């Protein structure tokens, strides 16, 4: 009886102590989440009364040329950033996993972009990409190539954004891989050495399988990040030229805070949510069979 009373009391206390966090969670996460789900079935511009339209927003989405283009751009952006980003950061992690003097300086150097602000990254890269004054086209001109208008060409704008995104996220993925690498017991490599294995076969048969856990995590995180890509695009190209870099979150932002179509924007948010959800489920399911624990 006494114990029960105490338990009861403890849970009350726990609740009270958690309250500040819970209020924040409710106010800024759960309520807006539910509200935007409800809004996705309405038409509302913050001025006229809210109008219930059922599934009309979702139906309109799949007829909306700009939405479909943004959806394709999001897939393009993801396919461009995730595989290349993951492969480069894996090789970088392996390279930086050596016991060499001053290796920490290199690790820090590759990690620096991650802690830098997106604004700074966007400005510096826009400058480098500038076709008139930029460093990239100057370097290309030295070897006799006329560089494209990186951010101004319909074909090059997205690859340019992808390059910057990979550069910005490289350090974070590398760090995760490094942690994973350092968790692999040295004894496997020693055993392989005794068997006379070459570097590449050790990499293929020890490193990659034992890193599969980390790789899964990195792939999921980077995919979710690139589905939500916005900052660099907003600052470097503002979705242009001719919407060639308009991704889902950018179009969502425009609908919500430029066109004031809150219902439509909420519908885009939920389509994005389900896309990410489906993707994550498929990935977990696929890897369940492959990942070596």
């Amino acid at each position, binding site marked *: 009886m006494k114990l029960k009373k105490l338990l009861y009391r403890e849970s009350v206390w726990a609740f009270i102590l958690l309250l500040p966090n819970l209020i924040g969670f409710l106010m800024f996460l759960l309520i807006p989440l539910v509200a935007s789900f409800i809004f996705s079935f309405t038409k509302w*511009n*913050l*001025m*006229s009364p809210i109008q219930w339209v059922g599934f009309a927003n979702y139906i*309109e989405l799949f007829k909306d*040329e*700009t939405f479909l283009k943004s959806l394709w751009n999001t897939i393009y952006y993801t396919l461009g950033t995730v595989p290349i980003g993951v492969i480069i950061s894996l090789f970088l992690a392996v390279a930086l996993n050596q016991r060499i003097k001053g290796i920490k300086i290199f690790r820090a150097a590759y990690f620096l972009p991650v*802690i*830098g*602000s997106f*604004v700074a990254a966007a*400005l510096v890269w*826009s*400058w480098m990409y*500038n*076709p*008139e*004054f930029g460093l990239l086209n100057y370097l290309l001109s030295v070897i006799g190539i006329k560089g494209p*208008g990186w*951010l*101004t*060409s*319909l074909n090059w704008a997205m690859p340019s954004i992808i390059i910057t995104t990979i550069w910005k996220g490289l350090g974070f993925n590398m760090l995760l891989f490094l942690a994973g690498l350092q968790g692999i017991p040295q004894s496997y490599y020693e055993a392989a050495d005794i068997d006379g294995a070459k570097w590449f076969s050790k990499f293929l048969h020890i490193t990659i399988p034992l890193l599969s856990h980390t790789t899964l995590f990195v792939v999921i995180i980077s995919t979710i990040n690139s589905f939500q890509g916005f900052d660099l695009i907003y600052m470097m190209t503002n979705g*242009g*030229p*001719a*919407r060639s870099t308009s991704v889902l979150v950018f179009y969502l932002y*425009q609908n*919500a*805070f*430029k*066109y*004031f179509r809150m219902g439509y924007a909420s519908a885009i948010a939920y389509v994005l949510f389900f896309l990410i959800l489906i993707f994550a489920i498929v990935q977990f399911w696929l890897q369940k069979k492959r990942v070596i624990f």
Partner: protein
Amino acid sequence: MKKSLLWIVVLILSMSMIAMFSLAGCKEEAAEEEVAEEEVAEEEVAEEEEVVAEPVNLKFVGWEVSPLETESVEKGLEIFMAQNPNITVDYNPIPHDQYTSKVLTMMLAGTCPDVFFCFAYDYRSFIKGGNLLNLTDLFNESYSIDDYIPSSAAIMNADDSIYGISSCTVSPVLYYNKAIFDEAGLAYPPSDPADAWTWEEFRDVAKQLTIVEGGKTVQYGVYGLENSYMFSALIMSNGGSYWNDNNNITATTINSPETAEVMQAIYDLRVVDGSSFLAAQIDPDVFISAANMLQTGKIAMLIDGSWALQELATLDFEVGVGALPKFKDAITHGQAHVHAAWAQTEHPEEAWALINFLSGDDYLLQNVRAGLWMPHKKEYYTEEGIAKWYNPDVHPEGFTDLAPYFENASVEPTAVNANLKVNDIFNEEMGKFLAGDEDIDTVLASIEERANAEFAAAE
């Protein structure tokens, strides 16, 4: 020992958290800090005011495009508060990009400021939403809509009612570096719109002023036309138009041979003649401002808004201002924001007093003399009127000849269109044409189809 170690860890962790947050939010924070500083400054000013019977406090918001503008608002408010000792005004600038969403949110929350800047393109939808105080009667007591220049009147006049008062106008014009023209031995572009260059004359001069050295263009004839704000003036000069009815837009009229001719000419200027370069190749925030390019001789002529004179006048070179080249008529367009009061303000009389003040000499003239604005009423374009604002330190020789250009400007097309998605469709499709991806007829047909579908859907 262990305890102190723990403290160090906590300290480091919290510091890194702070660093992370400040990095993530550095842009917003900077803006907030500015606002906070200004609030402090305002409070100081307010405290200095003497206590009078029945004091009224007005909340006022606007955006900040240049520090000069905020400074001039504050200077103006000081004068206003001195003239109206019972009214204090708290002014808070909101970042330009977030302006409409913040104001709408404040309206929904019932905490909207009494008086605020209102974008011309938001004006009609705000009225429709019942958010603006009807000023028609108060306005008619002292003014007539005919006192205003046509472009300002077209923005303010919403079905014969007035909900917002304009306080200035801006228009695209042609700037040039006098030294470059002198060196080339060419006549300056005419200031008087009656003598404006034809497109052929302009194109010829731009070609002559383009200098190529060793395969690289070191000086371009002109820059700035490939921007919808600028080229819309040329489309209108060729007799083209944007909307079927400025007061109630239901369709676009952009798909016309007049538009096609102008756009093709602008495209050829860059692609065929090499006298210009793609607008998006220069991001003024990132590298070099257009004003600096004109100063350093990277370009000989610049098409830009009249507000640019404020910056150009502070640079150390001789700048000239002329009329844009004409296709059929020498016209430009004009637009500016209006000042409006919230429909639910508790102090409509005082709000009107402030709006009225912001439309008058004390506030207007300082900005016109600085080169940022042009006046919005006809009275400022008479000889005495011009004498009030003309400032030889800022306005180049012959600038007064250009006065009728502003006075007679047509209303800028995007100022009367509340459907911003349509503007984005225009920019997207025109972008395809300017990038050389599609021809002008395809693009115009596509704009027409998509924009009209958008208007129909928004009904």
